[in-house]
Each structure stands twice: as C-alpha cells, then as structure tokens.
C-alpha cells in the first residue's frame, strides 16, 4: 500500500525509511533489520536513523563548492516537498479506511443479536427430538431380540438340514463319483456328528455316513488298486484316502505291492529269457576244439576258436536293454509317482504330524532294494553266462547301459544303495571278464603249443634228413623250421595278448559311465589288468613251461625235445624283451598308477629266465638221456669178452654222431653259437692219439706195481692235475656250444660208467679204442672245451683197459685207418643222402 503511494522518483532509501517507520508503527520490525543496522552506522546518511544534521551540514560545507551547495539545497527542498505530499496522501487514505471499518463493526453488532435468538430456538427443537427418539427405541426393544433369536434358529436349522441330507448327498456324490465333494462334505459334518453321537438321530446319521464313506473308501481303494487310472487320479485318490484317515502305511504298502506285481512281471520276463538263453547256451556254446587237421603253420585257425562266443538266443546287450527299458524304467516311474504321492506332498493339518514322508521313504527304500536285488541277481546270472570272450564291446556297452540307467534311480532316490550295488556288479563283471580273458589266453596258449607240437611231429623226417647231410643246409621244405615256428608262436601270443588288452581297454573308455569310478581308474588297471591278466599270463607261461620239465622228467620224454628247446627260447626272448614290452604297453594303455605294490618287471624277467634255464637244462637232459640210452644198451648187451677183432666203428657210434649233429643243427636254429675255449693249434683229431699211447701208459703204471696208499694218492693227484671236476648234469648257458657240451658230457659219462661195469676181452678193449677215436674225431667240434671230450674218452679207454682181461691195446695207426675208413663211408652216405634229397 505504501509502495503504491510513494512517488516513483523517490530513492530507495526514502522508501525504506517510510517502510520502516510504518513497520515501527505496526510493530513489524522483523524484516530488514540488518539493512537498517548497516545504514544506521553512517551519521551522514540522510535516511539512516543515526542521521546527525550538524555533521552532515559540516561535511557538505567542507566538501562542496558553493554551486554544489546551492544544487544540493534545491534538491533537498524538492525532496522535502515530495515527502510532505506523500505524508498527506497517506494520512488521507488511512483515515478513510478507519471510517469504513468503524461502519462495518457497527453493522456486525446488529447481526449477531439476531443470530443469538435463532440459536436458542434450535436448541429447543433438538431437545424435543431427543425425547421422541428415546420413546421410539423403548418400544422397539422387544421385537429386535426376537428377530435375532429367529435368525440363529434359522442357521441351525440349515445346518441340521445339511446333516440330515448328508447321507443322501453323499450317496449322490458316490453315484456321480464326485469323491472329492463327498469327502469334503463328510469332513465338515464329521466333528458335529462325532460331538452329538450320543443322540440317537445323529447317531443314525453318523452310522449312515460311516457306511457310505466306508463304501466310498472302498471304491477309492478299488480305484487305487486298479491303478489303471492316471497318476493325477491316483494322487487324488491317495489324498482323499489320506483325508479319510486311511493309514498312510497301509496305503504305501498297497501302492508298493501293486507296483511290485507289475515289476515282478518284468522280472519274470527277464528270468524266462535267461532260462531260454541258458538252454541254448549249453547246447551250442561250448568252446570248439581245434580241429586236428588244421594247418600247423598258422594256428590262427584254432586261435579264434576260444574267442568265439556262444551265439545264444539273445545277446547280453539285448537282455540288459530289455531289463533297462522294462524293469528299470518302470521302477523309476514307480519311485517318481510314489514320491509324488507320499513324500513330496505339501503336508497340511493333522497329516503333517504323522511324519509320513519318513515312513514312506523307508518303505520305498526297502521296496526298491528288494526288487533291485532280484534284478541284480538276474543280471549277474546273465553276466556270468557271458563266457565267450569274442566281443567285449557288447558286454561293456551292456554294462554301461546298465550302469547309466541306474544313475536315474540314484537321482530319484539319493540315499539308495542300489547304484553302488550296481557299480559293484559292474566291477564284479569286469573282474570276471579279466579272469575269463586270462583263461582264454591260457587255452589259446595251450592250443598254440599243441599246434606247434603237431608241426614238430610232422616234419621230423625233414629235420633228420637235413642234419644227416652234415651241415643242415636244407630245411626249406614245406614244413616250417624251428625259428619260423618260434616267431609265429610268439607273434600269435603277442597279438592275442594285444587284442585282449584292447578289449579290456573298453572298460576304461571315456564315454563309459563307470570308467571314472575309482575302481576302474585304479584297481582295475593295476590289480586287474596288469596283475590279474598280463602278469598272471606271463607267470602262467613260465609255470606251464616248468611243468613240461617236471612231468616229462619221470615218464620219459613225453614232450618232444624240440618243443622244450623252442619254449626255452621263447622264455628267454620274454626275459630279454617281450615282458618289458608288454608291461610298458599295458602301463601306457591303462595309465596304471601303482597305488598297490605290483610285480616288478625284473621279478617277471627273473622268472622267465629261470623257466628258460630249466627248459634248456631239461632239453639237455632229455637229449643226453636219449644218446646215453643208446650207448648204455650197446655196452650192456654186448659180450665184450668174446668179441671179434674190430674191423669197423660200431653203428651205434655213428648213430651217436648223427644224433649229436642233428641236435647241433636244431639248437643252432634257435641259439647263438657261444664261445669256445681257444683251440690249441694242434686241435685236430691227432691230439687224440696222445692219450692212447703216452698218457695211457703213465696212467697204467701205478696199477702194475702193488703200492702203498701213498702211491694211490699220488696217482689221484696226478689225475687232478689233468682235470677239473666235471659236473655232469649241470646248468648250461644259453648258447649252442654250452648245450652241446652238456649233452656230450652226459652221454660220455654214461658210456664211462657202463664200461666200468663190464669185463672186456682183448678185442673188446680194441673196439672201445676204435669207438672212442671215432667219437673224438667228431665230437670235439661241438663242445666249448675239447679237452673235456679228450678227458672223458681217455677215461673210458682207461677204464676199459682196467676192466680188460688181456689188455693189449690196438696200434694207434690201425685205429686211425679204421676210423678214416668209417669217416669216408659217412661222407659217401651223406652225399647219397643229399642226392636223394
């Protein structure tokens, strides 16, 4: 209002002052205080409250010129005038407002007087209304109570009606198969009926309801039992039954027994199949024998035989498939729906307290376990029938499937022992399989050996012929030679072993579910494959080789010597290379981690070497005995006293030389030459003459003069100078010379012992001389130390001389002539024999 009235040309200070003055007047001094204070400090501020006209005037007089003072004075006058007019305007305006306000107040005073009268009238009215209303409510009171009572009766009646209608309603529901409604209706009525059951009418209703509900439960059970209905129906059914206070345990049992009957049928189907296949198995499943006519060169014909599987009605994969698809999947279904019904159901109300899931779970476990046990026993039986080792992949796949399907159960039923039991079965099957492979390998080995035996028996002539020709140039007949037989045998065995390893390897393939089980990672590889299969097989080879030595020893050469030789070489090859190769191969293939101690390669090698040594020793023994036997018979059966003057070398000696030569050839085929002691420069047949002339006389000397014990000791000392102790049946080295030396030692020692048991006439001694000379001419070349032959032959002639009634030895030259003649005859025979060949 003031701003509107102030002239627009007035400065802001002037306006403010007016404002503040107005404010002071009206008691409004809150705002603009700061500005006032700031202004008030300056005494020269004309608008400030501390304005000092005196100071202001002095200041103006000091600072301004006259002109300026004049201007200032005029400006001041102008401002004062405008202020004055403003003041006047304000006073007028406010005066008017006072007047109108006074008018208004006067008018209001009149109006309030009138309103007071009206208010008095209203309060009188209200009092009369209250009075009327009280009167009305007093009259209505009784009727209201009556109405409330009636409405209560009405609801009770409706309930009663419901109760009385309940049996009929339930019946109807039953007819309509609206079981859920029936059950809910019954549930609602149940408590009431229970409560008032002492009243006969209610009792009747209750009994009726009971009967009906019994019927209903019966129907539900029936439905439940039929089981043909869908899972949803079934679950509803179960729920209703549970609500009907049917014991959950019984329901579980029923459900399970119902499921069991179905699963049982599956199992019986499997069992029937098992029986069928068993019948066919025994019919055609036996391992076929090798045909005797099979070509000995390639035992492969018989090789496959032990690996042919019995072609039964259904193979194991089909069986397992069927088992999985029928039994396992329905078992899974049963488990799933059971869990749906009894375990995973949201529990409400009283049902929750009964702890059904726990009970149901227990039952389920028992149920699954018993059924699975039966299933497993069937599977086990089937697996056991799987004796043929032809196609391992089939078995592995079957086992894989079996195992895989069981995982489903493990997912459904986390705590179940079934999957672990299943794994157990797989492990068992794997073990079984390894055993089967081992025995198949063993059979295979035996069959191969039989083949080799036949091959050896057949070409006997060829080998003999070749050796008779003296050098063994030709054994290139249709029949295989020893090295070929050896190579093929060892190849067959190795290949077979490899293929078996490959088959077994399937168990650990990456895509097989059970291959990552700890058993298949660790024990299967190390204990199963390495120890149980490979090591056992190698041990078996050694073992069976040793048996050849033992069994043949007493019964006299039932094993052909060549086989002994061959096996010995085989074992030796195993020792040098094959064993470490096989084991490295195995370790690589199976990544064997040796958690448990395994047989070290060295132990196996030692065993193989021992077997090889034993075989070779036995070979030497057998061959030595064959020759010994000839020599012994020839010495024992002859009347040496009354024999005629020797004209020729006895045929037996030629046989001995022939046989020795053929043995030499035979051994040479498989074993290296070996080292001989350095031949003395005169190592020819001439050396032999020494003993018969000079040495012999020395040896004779003591016996001619009866002597004291001293002399005999001297004699034996001299004897000792010439020879070291000779071990006759001593172990030989793995080379030809050593073998031959062993054989010749045995033969000559026999010769010696036999000679010592006989008495000779003059010509008997001479015949022995001739024979020994002949042997000397041939045998020295076979042995490592020709002195050995010299010594033994020397000993023979000496002993013969001792045992001679008329010891007059033959002239050395005559002996030589006779022997030369014999040798020439041999050569011409050999040439003839060669030309025949």
């Amino acid at each position, binding site marked *: 209002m003031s701003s509107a009235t102030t002239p627009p040309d007035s400065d802001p200070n002037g306006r403010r002052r007016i404002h503040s003055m107005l404010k002071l007047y009206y008691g409004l001094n809150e705002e603009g205080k700061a500005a006032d204070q700031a202004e008030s400090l300056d005494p020269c501020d004309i608008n400030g409250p501390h304005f000092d006209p005196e100071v202001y005037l002095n200041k103006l007089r000091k600072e301004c010129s006259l002109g300026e003072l004049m201007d200032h004075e005029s400006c001041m006058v102008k401002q004062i005038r405008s202020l004055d007019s403003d003041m006047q305007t304000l006073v007028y305006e406010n005066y008017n407002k006072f007047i109108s306000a006074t008018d208004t107040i006067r008018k209001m005073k009149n109006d309030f007087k009138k309103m007071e009268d009206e208010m008095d009238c209203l309060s009188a009215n209200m009092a009369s209304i209250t009075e009327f209303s009280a009167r009305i409510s007093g009259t209505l009171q009784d009727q209201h109570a009556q109405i409330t009572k009636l409405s209560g009766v009405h609801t009770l009646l409706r309930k009663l009606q419901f109760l009385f209608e309940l049996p009929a309603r339930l019946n109807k529901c039953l007819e309509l198969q609206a079981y859920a409604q029936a059950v809910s209706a019954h549930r609602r009525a149940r408590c009431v009926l229970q409560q008032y059951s002492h009243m006969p009418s209610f009792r009747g209703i209750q009994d009726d309801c009971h009967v009906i509900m019994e019927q209903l439960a019966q129907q539900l059970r029936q439905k439940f039992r039929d089981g043909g209905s869908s899972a949803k129906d079934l679950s509803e059914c179960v729920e209703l039954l549970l609500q009907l206070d049917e014991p959950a345990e019984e329901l579980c049992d029923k459900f399970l027994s119902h499921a069991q009957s179905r699963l049982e049928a599956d199992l019986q189907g499997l069992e029937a199949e098992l029986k069928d296949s068993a019948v066919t198995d025994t019919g055609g499943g036996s391992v076929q024998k090798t045909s005797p006519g099979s070509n000995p060169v390639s035992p492969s014909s018989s090789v496959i035989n032990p690996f042919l599987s019995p072609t039964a009605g259904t193979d194991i994969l089909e069986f397992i498939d069927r088992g999985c698809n029928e039994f396992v999947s329905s078992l899974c279904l049963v488990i799933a729906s059971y869990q749906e019904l009894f375990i995973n159901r949201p529990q409400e109300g009283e049902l929750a307290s009964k702890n059904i899931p726990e009970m149901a779970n227990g039952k389920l476990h028992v149920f699954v376990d018993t059924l699975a046990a039966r299933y497993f026993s069937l599977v086990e039986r089937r697996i056991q029938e799987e004796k043929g080792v032809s196609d391992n992949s089939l078995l592995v796949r079957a086992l894989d499937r079996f195992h895989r399907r069981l995982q489903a159960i493990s997912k459904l039923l986390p705590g179940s022992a079934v999957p672990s039991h299943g794994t157990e079965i797989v492990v068992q099957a794997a073990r079984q399989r390894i055993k089967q492979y081992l025995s198949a390998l063993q059979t295979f080995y035996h069959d191969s050996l039989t083949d080799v035996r036949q091959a050896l028996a057949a070409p006997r002539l060829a080998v003999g012929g070749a050796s008779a020709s003296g050098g063994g140039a030709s054994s290139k007949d249709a029949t295989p030679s020893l090295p070929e037989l050896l190579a093929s045998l060892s190849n067959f065995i190795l290949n077979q072993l490899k293929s078996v390893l490959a088959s077994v390897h399937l168990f650990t393939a990456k895509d097989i579910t059970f291959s990552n089980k700890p058993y298949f990672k660790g024990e299967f590889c190390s204990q199963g494959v390495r120890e149980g299969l490979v090591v056992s097989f190698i041990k078996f080879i050694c073992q069976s080789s040793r048996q050849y030595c033992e069994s043949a*020893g*007493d*019964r*006299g050469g039932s094993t052909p010597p060549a086989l002994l030789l061959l096996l010995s070489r085989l074992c030796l090859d195993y020792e040098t290379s094959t064993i470490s190769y096989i084991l490295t191969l195995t370790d690589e293939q199976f990544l064997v981690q040796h958690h448990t101690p395994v047989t070290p390669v060295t132990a196996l090698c030692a065993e193989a070497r021992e077997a090889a040594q034993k075989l070779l020793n036995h070979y030497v023994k057998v061959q030595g*005995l064959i020759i010994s036997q000839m020599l012994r018979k020839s010495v024992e059966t002859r009347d040496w*006293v*009354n024999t005629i003057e020797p004209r020729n070398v006895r045929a037996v000696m030629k046989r001995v030389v022939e046989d020795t030569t053929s043995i030499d050839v035979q051994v040479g085929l498989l074993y290296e030459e070996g080292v001989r002691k350095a031949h003395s420069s005169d190592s020819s047949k001439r050396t032999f003459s020494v003993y018969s002339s000079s040495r012999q006389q020395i040896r004779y000397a*003591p*016996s001619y003069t*009866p*002597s*004291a*014990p*001293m*002399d*005999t*000791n001297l*004699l*034996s000392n001299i*004897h*000792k100078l010439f020879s070291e*102790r000779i*071990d*006759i*049946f*001593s172990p030989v080295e793995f080379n030809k010379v050593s073998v031959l030396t062993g054989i010749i030692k045995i033969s000559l*020692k026999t010769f010696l*012992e036999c000679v*010592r048991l006989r*008495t000779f*006439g003059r010509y008997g001694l001479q015949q022995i001389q001739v024979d020994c000379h002949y042997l000397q001419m041939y045998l020295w070349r076979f042995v490592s130390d020709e002195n050995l032959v010299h010594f033994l032959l020397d000993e023979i002639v000496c002993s013969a001389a*001792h*045992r*001679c*009634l008329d010891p007059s030895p033959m002239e050395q030259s005559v002996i030589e002539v006779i022997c030369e003649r014999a040798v020439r005859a041999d050569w011409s025979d050999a040439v003839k024999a060669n030309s025949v060949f």
Partner: protein
Amino acid sequence: MEDDAPVIYGLEFQARALTAQTAETDAIRFLVGTQSLKFDNQIHIIDFDDENNVINKSVLLHDAGEIWHISGSPADKAVLTTCYSKTSESRVLTCAAVWRMPPEWESGNHESPDDSSNNPQTLELLCHLDNTAHGSVACVLWEPMGDGKRVISLAENHVLLWDLQESSTKATISSSATLEGKGQLKFTAGKWSPHHNNTQLATANDTAIRGWDLRSMSQIYCIENAHGQLVRDLDFNPNKQYYLASCGDDCKVKFWDVRHINEPVKCLEEHSHWVWSVRYNHSHDQLLLTGSSDSRVILSNMVSISSEPFGHLVDDDELSDNEESQQEDKGKEPLQDSIIATYEEHEDSVYAVEWSAADPWLFASLSYDGRLVINRVPRALKYRILL
C-alpha cells in the same frame, strides 16, 4: 669245536664193495673189497681209531676174483659174504660165497702192520652159494639182526633164500622166486626189510621197485617207474616200517611209503650224476647218506619224514616248568629238511657209502679209484639231535 678233518685211506686197487662189519659194535670197522682183473683181490679191514684219528688196516686175500659186493654177517663178525666175478672159458660169471676171516688177522695186524700187507692171510671159504643155474649174483643180503643163518641172493631175475647150516659151511636153497616179464629182467639191488619180523624184501630192477613176502615168496607191491632211469640202490628206514629210500640214474633220491606207491613221499635232487648208494643212519633215521658218480657224498637231514619228532623230545610239563629250555627249544626248532654237508674228498665215482655199525655218527665212502674216506656227522648237528 671244529669238526675233525676227514680221514682218507687209499687202496692200490679199484674198489666198489664196502660194508660195515655189522656184528662188531665196539670197534669202528669197515670192510672193502677190491676189483682187479689181473692181481689177487683183497679185502681190506679198516679199523678206525676214533680217539687218535688213525686208521689201522689189515689185508686178507680174496683170490676167488674181483669183488662186486660184500656183506658182513649180523651175528658173527668173522663171517662175511662176497659177490665176485669168476672168469672161466672166456665167460664171466658173478658168484657168491660165504667166508670166514682167519682168527689171527687181528693180532698179527697190530703187531706189524707192514708185514701183514706183505704176507696177507687168506680168507677161509665156508661155502658157495651155488648159482650156476641162476646166473650172475647181484648181491647177497643177510637177515637183518638175525642169527646169521639166513641169506638172500639176487641172481639175475631170481630171488634165492638160503639156509646156512653147520656153522655156515653148508648152504641150501630154502625157497626161491623168479621175476617173470618181458625182456631180460635183472635185479640190480635189494634190501631185506628189518621190519615185519624180517619177512619182507625189496628189490630193484630197471626202473621198478618191488616188494616181496618171503613166507610166500610172492610180490606184494611194485612201484613201476620209481625212477626215470635205472634204480641203483635201496634202503629201509630202520625205524619206520613202511618207509623206503631209493636212488638211481635220474640223479634223484626218493622216499616211499610202500602203502602209497603212486607218489614218492619226498624227492631229493642234489647230485649231478647217478646216485649209486643210499643209506639211512641206523639210529637217527633223519640222517641220510648218498654217494654218486659225480664223486660227491651228500649227508642230508630229512627231519620231516623221520621217526623222530621235530626238534625235541621234551615233555610238555617240563616245558612249562622251565621257561628257559622252552626258549632254547624255540631257537632250535627250525630243523628243516636240508643238506647237512657235501663231501668232496673223492675224485672218482663214489659207488658205496656206509654208516659205521659201532658209531652212529661216523660213516665211510668208497670211490672207484680206491679211496676210502671216513667222515663224521658235524658236531653241531650231532648235539642238536642228541640234546
């Protein structure tokens, strides 16, 4: 204590026949028969003086021929039998005879040993066991522990039981048996069983061992192929009546229970050539001696099949009484079948080994070159067996 070194005695002739003087129980005495075709053969009586470790020998002349087998009477220490070969009309036949040693040999020997060898006394012939009808005699066996009146001779394929009458000057065949079969059958060795009242005999021919009942002179058992090669010798376990040891050309020594003849009870294969002789110790049947043509003599301890129980004979109560002895026994317990010793003093084939009749811890072995070696069971073992 160190074991005594073996005592070696050399004969100037080759020799195969060795026996202990069975009837002599005081002196350790062995008889050796020589083999020589050119000179008069001798029987060396070798007395071993255990205390001084010295051998005293006497020589008796045996001019009938070279001796293949010798055997002393169990009743009269002066009586012995020999099997000797006789050459007549360029035919060699092995005969058997009963001899008596001249009574003076012992005294004469001791006074001047040198004289006796220079002027040997001759054996007195008591009687021939006439075998002209039956062929060469392999061996003569006295009735074990008998009265020296009965002997058996094995001639070719005949078993002849002789009765010696009139102080052994007359021999008559009381019964005989003949082994029939294919080929030329010939007994190589035999042994009269000391069990069953001396009614059993075991013989060896080729690879077979046969048992005979002397009352009926019939075969009671036959172990075919007892050895892979020829069977060379037999011996009965003196304390276990059904046990029998055999040896042969397959270098093996086998032990048989004649009630179960399919398999040997045990088999040893220690020699590297034919085993010619096997002998049980007379008192401690776990000790077994074998001689072989590999020139070795092996003494084995066959505890597991001996009549003596393992380890000790101490009663149980004693054991519980005395803890210490139990401890000791446990230390001793592992007496396994084992070779005790291999004796390598011989340089030629050993054809005969014998235990002394007087000292059970002493034995002799004879090799072809005429070397006789007397050895003892190692003391350690002896004490172990005794204590």
